[in-house]
């Protein structure tokens, strides 16, 4: 059948992407560390960190694609999961500073010292230990997603309503984290890290390893996501996206399916955040800003949602564009970004990858997708799976 063929193609696309990412994981650090600085192929540390950052964003976009592209949940709050992962990592890194903070207090991070806190709040316990912190990177975003999804999916909040309350969620979290009393460093956030598992975060080697880790995790998550969407479960997932009521009538527990996907996606976002923080050197409540989450949606849309590799490409392209424009034409950046949003929604509704894959069937797919979003549900699952 047509769909089976395309699935195979998709899989080979994904494998190819994984290979590219893995190659980058080896070659980029190698070029940075082994080649002399004046060699034509040498990648400077600055560029490598930048690329590491893009990979984290790519992972975040991938996470969003899993819920949006395959499950129809447009989350405008994925930045929150990303930020939680980042904070978990940031807290670990803060604890590693130990008594090397400016006040030399061995028990408390600097920001607590100058706000006159006397002891470490309970939620900071355990973050001295790397394994615990890494567990939290997965656990905290997962828990938030679980609690939030549990209520929302059970009450059948969906579509626009869901998008708006996820936005409310990340906005409320942003306001909370801005408060100094929360014990997360207020608007200054957590910064000035020294080392990670014993290695200086500023050392070239550490940066190279972090870059490689970002690439590895991206490849791993891509494989997991691909396994999920290509399994039988994945087909149900697409069914939920396209005709939720029908799937429910067929006897599936739609809310559990959504919840599972949402939690997995949140964990991906958490991992992305955790890798992001040591590479950029700061985590602060700005990451919770609703605008950031919307930007993630744009990367995904640009690359092509429901394609898994599209969001990765979209995130890297848009962010590379951002890095270039904000340096070269600072005044024009927002015009370019805004124009991109409009152009993509008007002319590339399936995104870059979707358009390449979809080819001639694009027009039909637009109609299908639009009908699906209207919730008409009068589309056959097979036609959808052909995306």
């Amino acid at each position, binding site marked *: 059948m047509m769909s089976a063929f395309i699935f195979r193609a998709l899989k080979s696309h994904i494998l190819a992407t994984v290979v590219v990412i893995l190659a980058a994981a080896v070659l980029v650090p190698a070029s940075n560390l082994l080649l002399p600085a004046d060699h034509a192929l040498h990648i400077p540390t600055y560029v490598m960190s930048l690329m590491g950052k893009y990979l984290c964003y790519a992972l975040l976009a991938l996470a969003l694609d899993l819920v949006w592209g395959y499950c129809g949940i447009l989350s405008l709050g994925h930045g929150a999961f990303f930020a939680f992962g980042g904070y978990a990592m940031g807290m670990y890194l803060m604890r590693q500073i130990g008594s090397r903070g400016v006040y030399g207090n061995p028990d408390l991070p600097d920001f607590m010292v100058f706000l006159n806190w006397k002891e470490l709040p309970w939620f900071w316990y355990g973050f001295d230990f790397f394994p615990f912190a890494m567990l939290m990177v997965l656990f905290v975003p997962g828990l938030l997603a679980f609690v939030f999804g549990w209520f929302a999916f059970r009450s059948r909040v969906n579509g626009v309503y869901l998008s708006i309350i996820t936005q409310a969620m990340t906005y409320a979290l942003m306001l909370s984290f801005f408060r100094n009393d929360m014990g997360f460093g207020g608007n200054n956030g957590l910064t000035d890290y020294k080392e990670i598992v014993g290695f200086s975060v500023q050392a070239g080697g550490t940066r190279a390893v972090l870059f490689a880790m970002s690439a590895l995790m991206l490849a791993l998550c891509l494989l997991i996501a691909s396994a999920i969407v290509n399994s039988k479960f994945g087909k149900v997932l697409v069914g939920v996206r396209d005709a939720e009521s029908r799937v429910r009538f067929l006897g599936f527990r739609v809310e559990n399916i959504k919840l599972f996907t949402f939690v997995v996606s949140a964990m991906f976002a958490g991992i992305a955040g955790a890798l992001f923080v040591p590479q950029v050197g700061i985590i602060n409540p700005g990451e919770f800003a609703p605008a950031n989450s919307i930007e993630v949606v744009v990367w995904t849309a640009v690359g092509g949602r429901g394609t898994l590799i599209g969001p990765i490409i979209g995130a890297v392209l848009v962010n590379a564009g951002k890095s270039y424009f904000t340096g070269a034409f600072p005044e024009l950046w*927002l015009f370019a970004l805004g124009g991109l949003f409009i152009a993509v929604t*008007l002319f590339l509704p399936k995104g870059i990858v979707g358009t390449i894959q979809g080819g001639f069937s694009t027009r039909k797919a637009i109609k299908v997708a639009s009908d699906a979003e209207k919730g008409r549900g009068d589309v056959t699952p097979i036609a959808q799976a052909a995306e």
Partner: protein
Amino acid sequence: MTTRHFFRILITLLAFAFAAPTFAQGNDPKPLFDQLADANFNDAEKLVGQIAATGDTRVVPALNAFAEGDLYFRKSDKAVFAAKAAASQLELIDPVTGESAGQVAKGAVTKIKVNNNLRRAIRAALGGLTLMSPDRGARLAAADAILRSPSAEALELVEAALAKESDRAVKARMQEARAVSLLSSDRSVEEKRAAIETIGKLGGRDALGILNSVSSSIDASLKPDLEAAIASIQNEQQLWDMAQNVWYGLSLGSVLLLAAIGLAITFGVMGIINMAHGEMVMLGAYSTFVVQQVIRENAPGLFDWSLAIALPVAFLVTGAVGLVIERGVIRFLYGRPLETLLATWGISLILQQGIRTIFGPTNQEVGNPSWMSGSFPLGGMTITWNRMWIVVFSLSIFVGLLLLMKRSAFGLQMRAVTQNRRMASSMGIRTPWVDAFTFALGSGIAGIAGVALSQIDNVSPNLGQSYIIDSFMVVVFGGVGNLWGTLVGALSLGILNKFLEPSVGAVLGKILVLVLIILFIQKRPRGLFALKGRAIEA
């Protein structure tokens, strides 16, 4: 402070008032004014006392000018003049005679600085000088000045004025001024008791302040009276505080309503997740700015009308922008609401940056016309005019919109198209134009909301951003597609916010409101007033 200086002024005044009740022009204030040129703040304060002590009421305009910062000295001869702007120059006015002393360039004179203390001293001096002024308003203001800064020394002056006063309202005010002055004097306990009673009846925050301020120095036998009076004012004040809080809630609610009502059309009725809504509000505010700018330059007399002029301008500008957006972008996206989110977000970025490029990133000054400034007391509450007009304005927009939707042909077509596009189309309605004009209407309403919001908030390219999330919350909370839901949603969120604010603080209050909305949506996934029907439920 300078109560010391203030007393000194009054003492001199008083001494004067008794020594020479019928004042002759023997003591010329002019040299005293001229000494101001070299005086520091403290010396200036003394000089103001001495000027007032001449009792020459001709100095009143000059003292007023001094308080306003319009007193200058000429660099060449250090002569002091009041001044007012005349074209690009300053017209000098003799401080005593009030005659014009010709025009000079701004560089030829130096302003004599005032600070808060000096201004207070001047007001007190003016109070003393004008207690017996023939002008009723001036006497009232004088009594008020004494009421504000009570002192034992003012007592005799007030009593003297009181004896001659015939106007009822002024007399009552002077009685109060006498009572507050009496409290800090060394009069008998009985008189003071009566004074406490008078002040107690006066009520309000100021009275509370006066009573509190004497509580440590007052005779022990008066303590119970004083405390009773304080307690009674506080009790009364508590009730008023409650009412005040409701009012604040209504006023915040009406701001939310204003911000959200345009969105209730574009998002609620049309289903477009219009992230550029905030920018429409911003464009409305900038239209107001431009209108005011034009008026300031061409017809300053019309300034009080600037908002009335800005309303249609803003409506047309944002409506037109909305029309362009709909025709250019949104019409291709019907049926794909989540993609309208992306496209309109892109539009909002472009509009923001466009405004930033044209007008600069900084705040623009939008003035309040006189009828939007200040406040009036209502019982124990203070109601500011701008808030009051915004409440009225947003409610009338709401009513107008409701009428338009329910009673006009356009409203009928609009509802028909959103409820069943194909059917409406086959009935001969030109659905594309209805779409376009509905979106333009929503944008235009956001624009006139911007006119109102420019009166209370920053006019900067970020203006829209600060309202967009709140607006969505209001519409979703109230129930998409229902104007009444938006009204009730906005007002209840406003009041909820204002009742949370005093107990948990503004920051936590805002967070709690958001959490409550999230929880509420779980309970009622379609908002407060859900539209029933299959179309929505699918």
